[in-house]
């Protein structure tokens, strides 16, 4: 969790993304250093999901500069592909491939894109399954799993390609409350191991416990960001205060 390297692993400068006349991301700067966990929080429509999707090219930014692991996303398919082989992503709705077993879901990309042998890919896949607490589930199909289990398989699938950076797009937003902690537990372990993670989330407790930097976005801008707990304990901007208090009033304590 240290900022050991001067060069950020992921760097966004002045990134803009428009959909027609709607500006979803309006000049965002963000630096993520190795082994950091960065949480991006904010209301719906703030552009936080769009931002994270520009990092692996699922959205093409209209202006600004995005550099991942030294590769600049310059609009070429080659740069996008290079980044995708080094960046993993976990989606809100899991997006597992329903016609493949859990094992095949995890080994598909390593074997097809990274040239890993079947045996090697399956060995590592079983290791990852054990790591996310799903040992023995390799022959199951996604439809047989609960949401929390599917998401953990999705995390294993993202890890299987041995990425430098993991992107999480609201990983627990579609889960029943009782299984949210299972998934967050896996994510906390990854953070402890020093995996570089960027997490778009509504889970403030998780962000407070795990994030090295919390970034608050609203209406396409980064309103403020703070190291660790600072932003949550001591928000500087009025919009941040409003957002945090609206969440507090919605807690179920």
């Amino acid at each position, binding site marked *: 969790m240290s900022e050991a390297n001067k060069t950020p692993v992921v760097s966004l400068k002045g990134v803009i993304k428009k959909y027609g006349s709607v500006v979803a991301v309006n000049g965002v700067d963000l630096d993520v250093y190795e082994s950091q966990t960065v949480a991006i929080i904010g209301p719906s429509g703030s552009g936080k999901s769009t931002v994270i999707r520009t990092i692996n090219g699922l959205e093409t930014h209209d202006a600004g500069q995005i550099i991942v692991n030294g590769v600049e996303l310059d609009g070429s398919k080659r740069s996008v592909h290079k980044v995708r082989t080094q960046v993993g992503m976990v*989606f809100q709705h899991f997006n597992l491939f329903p*016609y493949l077993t859990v094992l095949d879901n995890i080994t598909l990309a390593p074997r097809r894109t990274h040239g890993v042998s079947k045996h090697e890919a399956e060995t590592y896949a079983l290791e990852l399954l054990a790591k996310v607490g799903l040992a023995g589930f390799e022959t199951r199909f996604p439809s047989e799993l609960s949401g929390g289990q599917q998401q953990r398989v999705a995390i294993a699938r993202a890890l299987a390609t041995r990425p430098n950076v993991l992107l999480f797009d609201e990983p627990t937003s579609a889960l029943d409350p*009782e299984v949210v902690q*299972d998934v967050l537990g896996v994510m906390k372990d990854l953070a402890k191991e020093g995996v570089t993670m960027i997490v778009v989330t509504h889970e403030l407790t998780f962000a407070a416990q795990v994030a090295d930097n919390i970034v608050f976005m609203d209406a396409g801008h980064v309103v403020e960001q703070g190291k660790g707990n600072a932003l949550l304990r001591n928000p500087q901007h009025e919009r941040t205060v409003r957002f945090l208090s609206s969440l507090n009033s919605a807690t179920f304590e």
Partner: protein
Amino acid sequence: MNGIVDFSGLFFTAVLYTIALSVMSIIGGTVLGVTLGFIYAKRVEEPIWFKPARVVINIYIRIFRSIPPLVLMFLLYFGVSAAISVSIGLTSAVVISLSLFIGAYQVENIRAGIESVPRGQGEAASALGLGIISRMWHVEARPTFAVAMPSMVGQWVVTVKDTSLASGIGVVEATTIALTVRQATGETWLVFLVLGVTYFLINRGVALIGKIIEQKISRSSSEVTEVVASA
């Protein structure tokens, strides 16, 4: 009645020929339709050449869904040899016409199947760095055929029925023989009844094969019979 039975050997051979024409046309049309269909489907990310290819495929679909298959057979068998010195054989003319005709419909069936795959899976495939071929084979193929098969089998049945049109260009298949037998024996009702039953049986066979294929495709995705209640 005896007269009719004399023709049974001839009829049987003709039925075999009908089946042969049907099988060749079904294979031709389905291979064509599936290949083009996988290119024709719209995806968020695709190779650059897909876009112009889609324009060409669209033209193909529009033309071949608008011309009656019999007219296509006329064009290929009579028209081509009248226009240029190359002549196309009877069987080829029928099979090519029907393949092009059915292919145009199969493209749409496949396209609908692919576009029914949830967008999120395509995004996951992209995020994992999977190329278009891997994506088509591992992510899209099974759900596509699970959705498209009923319509595809419907097209196969149409193909079998349309082979009867070949009688219009002089091909000796089941319908042609039936007409001949009717001419020779005067037994109108019985002859056409037998012909109808013949096509019915062939198409039942086609439908059965289709069902078996459908079952094989969906086999591994829905082995759950109970809902998993908790993590």
